[in-house]
C-alpha cells in the first residue's frame, strides 16, 4: 500500500512539475548566415549555451542555400517553417518583416536598456536601428566597405594610392590595356539588388558626406553627388577602364588594380593568395572633395531578430540574447573567428580588441573607417528599390544606353513611384 502511495505521489509531482514548466525543456530554432567562418563561430557559441542551459535548448542551423538570405527566410515564413531567432538581417528587410508583424520588439523585455549599455551599442541601436519608437534588431557586426589597391603594381608605376575619380582616370590612361586583361578598377555590374549597396549607395554616401540616398518618403540621390559618381562610372566604361566580363578574383590575380572589398575577404585572400600585396583605402571621392574632410563609407551591417510569438520561446531567446551580447568574450571571439568588426562603439578603445587588431593591420584599417560607416538607408522596399535602380540607372549607364543625368532623372521618377505605392 505504501509503495502504491509513493508511486502515486511521485506521479502527481511529475505531472504538476510538467504543468508548471519546471521540467519542460524549451527548444528554439536559430538561423545564422551561410558563411563558413560564422558557421564555425555559432557552432561553438550554441554548443556552449546548450551545455550550460539544458532546459533552454537551441537548435541551430545556417540559413538554407538560396540566392539571398532574404528570399530563403521569406519562403520559410510563407510556408510556416521559419526560425524563432535569426541573424543576417539588414534594416530594410527588418522593416519589411515588421510591417508584416513578424518581428518582436526587444525593448518590451526587461533589461533591454542595460543590455545596450553593457555591449556599448546604445547610440548605434538608437540612431540607426529604430522603427517608429521600437527596436526590433540588435546589430551584430558592422563591416565598413573599403577599396583595395594592388600595391606592387602601384609601386611599379610609381603612383600613389588613388583618392579621387581623377586619380583613377589618370592611372587608367597610364596602365589600362584590355587586350592583355589589364584593367584599372573593378565595378560590379551584376544585376543582383544587393550589389548596388557596394557601388552606387557607397559612393553616394562618400560624395555627400554620409547623406542618405533615400528615406521613407522619397529619393534623394538625384543631385550633384549622384551625378558626379555616375559620370565617373560612364567614363570608366566608355574608356574600358573597368572590365565588363566576369572574372574570378580579378584583383588578386592582377587583372584589375583596385576594387571595393569587405573585411570578410581578408582571410580568404590570405589563404588563397598569400603573395598578394595590397593597400586598403577609403572610398574614392570627386576631385573637388575637400582633402581635410573625413570620407564616409557604406556599412554592411546585419543584426539579430526574434520571430517567435510563443512566450516561452521568447523567454529562451531573450535569455540567449542577453547572455550572448552582454559578454565581451563573445565579441572578441567573433572578431577572431570571422574577421568582422562587432557593432560596438568601443571597438577602437577596448584593449580586448586592440590586441587582435594590432596583429591584423588590414582589419585595423577597416576599424578606422567605423566612425564614418553608414548603414543602409532605411526603407521597407529596399529590395524593390535597388532592383529598379539597377534596371533604370546602373545598367543603362554601364552599357552606354543613357547619359548619367537622364538615367538619374529616370531612376528618381521610377523609384519615387515605388516608394509612394
Amino acid at each position, binding site marked *: 500500500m505504501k509503495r502504491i502511495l509513493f508511486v502515486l505521489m511521485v506521479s502527481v509531482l511529475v505531472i504538476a512539475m510538467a504543468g508548471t514548466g519546471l521540467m519542460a525543456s524549451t527548444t528554439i530554432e536559430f538561423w545564422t548566415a551561410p558563411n563558413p567562418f560564422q558557421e564555425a563561430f555559432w557552432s561553438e557559441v550554441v554548443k556552449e549555451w546548450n551545455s550550460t542551459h539544458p532546459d533552454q535548448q537551441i537548435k541551430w542551423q545556417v540559413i538554407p542555400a538560396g*540566392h*539571398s538570405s*532574404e*528570399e530563403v527566410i*521569406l*519562403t520559410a*515564413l*510563407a510556408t510556416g517553417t521559419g526560425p524563432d531567432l535569426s541573424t543576417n538581417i539588414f534594416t530594410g528587410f527588418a522593416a*519589411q518583416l515588421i510591417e*508584416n*508583424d*513578424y518581428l518582436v520588439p526587444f525593448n518590451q523585455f526587461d533589461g533591454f536598456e542595460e543590455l545596450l549599455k553593457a555591449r556599448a551599442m546604445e547610440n548605434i541601436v538608437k540612431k540607426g536601428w529604430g522603427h517608429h519608437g521600437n527596436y526590433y534588431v540588435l546589430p551584430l557586426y558592422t563591416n565598413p566597405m573599403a577599396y583595395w589597391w594592388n600595391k606592387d603594381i602601384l609601386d611599379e608605376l610609381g603612383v600613389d594610392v588613388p583618392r579621387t575619380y581623377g586619380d583613377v582616370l589618370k592611372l587608367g590612361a597610364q596602365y589600362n590595356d*584590355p*587586350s592583355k*586583361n589589364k584593367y584599372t578598377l573593378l565595378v560590379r*555590374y*551584376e*544585376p*543582383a*539588388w544587393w550589389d548596388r549597396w557596394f557601388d552606387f549607395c557607397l559612393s553616394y554616401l562618400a560624395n555627400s558626406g554620409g547623406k542618405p540616398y533615400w528615406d521613407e518618403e522619397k529619393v534623394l540621390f538625384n543631385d550633384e553627388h549622384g551625378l558626379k559618381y555616375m559620370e565617373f562610372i560612364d567614363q570608366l566604361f566608355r574608356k574600358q577602364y573597368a*572590365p*565588363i*566580363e*566576369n*572574372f*574570378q578574383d*580579378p584583383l588578386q*590575380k592582377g*587583372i584589375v588594380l583596385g576594387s571595393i572589398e569587405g573585411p570578410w575577404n581578408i582571410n580568404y585572400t590570405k589563404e588563397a593568395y598569400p603573395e598578394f600585396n595590397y593597400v586598403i583605402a577609403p572610398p574614392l571621392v570627386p576631385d573637388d572633395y575637400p582633402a581635410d574632410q573625413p570620407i564616409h563609407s557604406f556599412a554592411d551591417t546585419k543584426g539579430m531578430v526574434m520571430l517567435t510569438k510563443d512566450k516561452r520561446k521568447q523567454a529562451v531567446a531573450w535569455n540567449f540574447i542577453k547572455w550572448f551580447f552582454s559578454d565581451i568574450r563573445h565579441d572578441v571571439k567573433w572578431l577572431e573567428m570571422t574577421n568582422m568588426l562587432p557593432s560596438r562603439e568601443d571597438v577602437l578603445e577596448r584593449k580586448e580588441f586592440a590586441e587582435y587588431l594590432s596583429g591584423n593591420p588590414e582589419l585595423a584599417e577597416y576599424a578606422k573607417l567605423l566612425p564614418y560607416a553608414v548603414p543602409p538607408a532605411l526603407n521597407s522596399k529596399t*529590395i*524593390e528599390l535597388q*532592383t529598379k535602380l*539597377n*534596371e533604370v540607372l546602373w*545598367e*543603362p549607364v554601364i*552599357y552606354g*544606353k543613357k547619359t548619367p543625368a537622364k538615367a538619374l532623372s529616370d531612376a528618381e521618377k521610377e523609384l519615387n513611384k515605388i516608394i509612394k505605392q
Partner: protein
Amino acid sequence: MESNLAERRNVSAKNLIGYLFCSPYLIFTLVLWLYPFLWGIVISFKKWNLISPRQSWVWLKNYLDVLKDPMLWVMVRNSIYFMVVFTTLTTITSLGLALLIKQVPKKYTGFFVTGFLLSYVSSGVAYSMVFNLLFAGDGLVNNLLKTIGLKVGWFTNPKIAMASIAMIVCWKFTGYYGLFFLAGLNNIDPTLYEAAVIDGANAWQRFKKITVPLLNPTFIMIIVFATITSFNLFTEPYMITNGGPMNATRTMMLEIYHRVFALLQAGYGSALAIVSAIITFGFVWTFRKLFERDDLYDV
C-alpha cells in the same frame, strides 16, 4: 440474367482494382498538381504579399498590370530568341547524335546513350557554376579564343547572353532528345532505304526524302518540348546572369520567382504564371498546326 449480374460484379471488382493501382498517381496529381494550380488561379485575382494573412480581391487588376508591363514583352522576346537558338541547336546536335549512335553496334548503344544522358540528369546548379567559370573573362574558353585575338563576353554582352544560355541548355538536352530521335530512326522501315538504294538515291537524298519526313512526329515532339523548355527556363539564368545584362536573359519563370519571393507580390506572380502558360500553349498549338502531318503513311 444471373450470369450477367455476376459478370458485371466481376467487371466492377476489376475496375476497383484498376482504380486502386492508379490511386497513388491520381492522389499525387490531385494534391501536388491540381490543388496548387487551382490555388494559383485564385491567388492571381488577389493582392497578397505571401507572408501576411491579409488577402484582398483585386479581380483582374493583376492581369491588367501584367499585360501593361513592358517587361512582359521583353521576356516573350527573350523566350522566342532562346527558343529559336535552342531548338535549332538541339535539333541538329541530338539528331546528329542519334544518327551516330545508330551506326554503333547494338551491344554498345546502351553505353553511349547512358553517357550522353548524364548531362540531362546532372544538377542544374552545379553545371551552371561550371559553365560560368568556363566562359568567364579568364576562363578556359576565352583563354583559347585569346590565342586568335578574340575575347567574348559570353554572359555580359546583352546581344549574346541568351544564346550562351541556350548553348548550355542544349548541352543538357542533347542526349535526352537524341534518345527520341534514336527511337524515331529505329521505327523507320529499313526496306524503304533498301528500295531507295536500288532506285539509285544517294545518302543525302535518302536522308532528305525518307529520314526527315518519317521523323516528323519526333520533330514535333522535340519542338513541343523545346518550346515548353524555352518558356519555363529558370535555373541557368538564375544561377549565371540573374536576368541581366540589360534584362537580356530575364525569363517569365525568373520574373515569377523574383516577384513572389523577393518582392512578395504573390498575386502578380500568379497572374504572370497563368499568362505565361497561355502564351506557351499558344506557341505549342501554333507549331503543331503548322508542322504536324498526319498523312505520313498514306499511300
